[in-house]
């Protein structure tokens, strides 16, 4: 196993190589002189760290707080798991460690396990006290004693500091205990003392978990791994049932959920769903998960399922209070529909039309995802909303249309046409659109729409000025045409069909 860096060095070794006297960091040439038959492979740190992250994710079955612990020295890699509050689910720390060891062994992962009151202590114990089949589980009051015989490296110090400590004869952690703190700090900086404090919990050291930590979690383990979709669906129903009872008790509804399927081979498959409004309807939520069940590859079987909620919103117990037919009830009724559609087609497939403060046609009405609720409204200047939508008030249109008319269909981008017209600003006489010639019978216009020079994004140079015409061809179809550019400009103006009137 080799790392290349000008010279070729050993990055990591297996136990047999270690027994032969090799060590990580040793030049390959030296190693080969020890062991001529050494089998090597190029190191792939990216794959290593990905594998470690996957392992950390798998450890999510023990606690939501897990994180890969990537060290520069390959052998020191590990996974941190915060089991405070979750070890009782496994019948105590010893049982948890035993379960973890058994499952890791099943996956063929060499491991050393330690459980301690602090991250620092557990780190030290796992690397310097635990043996392969012997997890280090000192009682809380024994942790100090358990750390004492370990080498000073166990304190997670940088190599230079370790060297310095060794030079003054401090080889074991226990030998540092009686040292005066200020002398240590003067000589080696704050790191020694602070690492020591972290190991004993005098200095807090929070674990930054892998990804986001869910606010609520429900777990279901199976005695026998399951793979049948029907079984999985039943399990989903049960998990969701558990979760929703809890949500109902707290008066909240879920917005974002993640269902993790822990496979027996250590991989974790996920179904993630979002809801348009907070929900705790078990049938609805279970339906969303079940609909996506075919994206989950159960492999050889699934031994654990963990349903986690990442975002909740207040949802008072009101369902029945909605009056049938009221707009609130309608909104309430269609939320599950939006979730179903979103789960199937993707949330970005669902949008709504929102008016905007712009006289540029394509910007006056835009599609926004249903997800982002009223946030986009902020861009509309309050009190000017009517002005923001030219011709959009029902009253204006009822009459003879003082405001310019707008088409029912708008092409984005506008479709170029070949048109013949009289300069400077007559409507076209005829135009060819989609390979068909249209003779213009009647036309209104022009309505000039110029670039919004006060905004960053304009039409672009050539299209800075558009003259719009409402044109009726000899058959009676009505088009919204525009000419980009002025009559004698260079390049010559171009014509586009931008929309169709009903």
């Amino acid at each position, binding site marked *: 196993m080799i790392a290349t860096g000008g010279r070729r060095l050993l990055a990591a070794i297996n136990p047999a190589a270690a027994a032969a006297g090799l060590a990580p960091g040793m030049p390959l040439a030296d190693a080969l002189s020890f062991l001529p038959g050494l089998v090597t492979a190029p190191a792939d740190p990216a794959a290593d760290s990905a594998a470690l992250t996957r392992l950390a994710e798998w450890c999510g079955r023990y606690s939501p707080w897990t994180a890969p612990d990537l060290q520069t020295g390959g052998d020191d890699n590990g996974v941190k798991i915060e089991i405070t509050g979750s070890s009782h689910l496994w019948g105590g720390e010893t049982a948890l460690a035993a379960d973890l060891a058994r499952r890791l062994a099943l996956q063929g992962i060499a491991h050393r396990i330690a459980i301690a009151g602090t991250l620092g202590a557990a780190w030290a114990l796992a690397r310097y006290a635990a043996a392969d089949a012997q997890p280090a589980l000192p009682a809380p009051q024994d942790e100090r004693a358990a750390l004492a015989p370990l080498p000073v490296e166990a304190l997670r110090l940088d190599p230079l500091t370790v060297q310095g400590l060794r030079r003054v004869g401090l080889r074991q952690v226990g030998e540092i205990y009686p040292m005066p703190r200020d002398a240590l700090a003067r000589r080696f900086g704050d790191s020694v003392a602070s690492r020591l404090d972290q190991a004993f919990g005098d200095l807090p050291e929070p674990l930054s978990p892998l990804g986001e930590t869910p606010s609520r979690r429900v777990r279901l383990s199976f005695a026998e791994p399951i793979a049948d979709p029907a079984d999985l669906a039943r399990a989903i129903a049960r998990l969701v049932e558990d979760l929703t009872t809890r949500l109902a008790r707290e008066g909240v509804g879920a917005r974002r959920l993640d269902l993790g399927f822990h496979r027996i081979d250590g991989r974790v498959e996920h179904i993630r769903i979002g809801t348009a409004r907070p929900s705790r309807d078990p049938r609805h939520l279970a339906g969303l998960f079940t609909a996506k069940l075919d994206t989950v590859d159960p492999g050889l079987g699934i031994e654990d399922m963990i349903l986690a909620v990442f975002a909740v919103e207040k949802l008072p117990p009101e369902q029945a209070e909605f009056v049938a*037919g*009221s*707009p*609130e009830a*309608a*909104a*309430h*009724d*269609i939320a*599950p*529909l939006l979730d*179903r*559609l979103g789960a*199937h*087609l993707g949330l970005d*497939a*669902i*949008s*709504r*039309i*929102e*008016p905007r403060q712009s006289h540029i046609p394509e910007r*006056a*009405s835009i599609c926004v995802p*249903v997800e982002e*609720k*009223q946030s986009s*409204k902020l861009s509309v200047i309050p009190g000017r*909303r*009517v002005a*923001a*939508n*030219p011709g*959009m*008030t*029902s*009253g204006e*249109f*009822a009459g003879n249309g003082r405001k310019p*008319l*707008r*088409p*029912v*269909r*708008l092409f*984005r981008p506008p479709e170029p046409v070949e048109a013949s017209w009289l300069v400077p600003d007559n409507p076209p006489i005829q135009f060819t659109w989609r390979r068909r010639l249209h003779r213009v*019978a*009647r*036309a*209104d216009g022009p309505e000039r729409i110029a670039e919004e020079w006060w905004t960053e994004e304009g039409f672009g140079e050539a299209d800075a000025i558009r003259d719009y015409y*409402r*044109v*009726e061809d000899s*058959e*009676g179809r*009505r088009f919204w045409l525009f000419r980009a550019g002025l009559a004698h400009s260079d390049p010559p103006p171009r014509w586009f069909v931008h*929309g*169709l*009137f*009903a």
Partner: protein
Amino acid sequence: MSFSHAIRPRLPAGMPRPASLAALRDRIRQIELPLRHGVLPFGVPAIDDALPGGGLARGAVHEILGAGGDEEDGAAAAGFAAAILARIGSSPMPTSSSHRCAMGPSLSPLKGGEGKPGRLVIPLSALGGGEGRGEVGDSRALGTGPVLWCLKRPDLYGPGLMAHGLDPARLVLVSASRDDAILWAMEEGLRTPGLAAVVGEIGRLSMVAGRRLQLAAERSGVTAFVLRRWRNGEEAAAERERPSAALTRWRVTSLPSRDELRLRNDPKLQHLVGRPRWRVELLRCRGGVPAQWVVEVADATGHVCLSAELADRPAAAPKQKMGRREADRFDAEPGQRRAG
């Protein structure tokens, strides 16, 4: 049964036999069944008379076709659908709930708590309590329920819909790339009673797919509109004459606009676009007769009215009954002609 045995021989010769009676009842039920969710009148007697029940059946599937080049884009079809949707609320029956819809702050679920810009909601109580609130709520107050509009090309334009009376804030757009995804989304929508209507822009519609939509619509009372949009002439030719399970099939054609009086007299204004018009054809209607009308394009309240001018009427005149009605309308005062 011995009783029926005894009676059957004594039936007069002209009486229908029980078996055919049952068939007749079935037929009546077939006609009446689609109407159990109520109807949405156009407010134009000529059109409403041609439809069983006096209007467009709710909780049913209606097909709307474009014509000529518009078969591809469905602009006129979209305008026509918008006009109908403008008048369709979320409540399937003209009951007190429609009253509440018009009374309350006109909310749309996706817009949140604010009223619509520029929309004046007149409490129905202001119109006089006894004035058949159901009917008024139905035909005059604009609809408020959300509309699911499933489409392949995102070319629907909000301000243009507004011009035909449909508040774009009521729309939930679903874009999908394939017909079957659109059909699926429509069917899901039709199972949701909170929706006012479901619109789908579809190229191919098989009998089975149409039937599924129809069943879902009947069950929930949500009305479905299938806007047929064909990619090219070939697809149009293949699909145009295909029967479907829809209750009605309409074709909407943009007609040259009618010159208004002021345009006709002033040579300078002659080339301006006048009042836009549609030819609305009822091609197929279960329990009704095919017919066609020339109407003025729906206004911002979603109402259409018969065009006053008959000059552009096609040579193949519709049913005589229609012709008479149009003549009746023509004689009427222009002010009264506007329906709704």
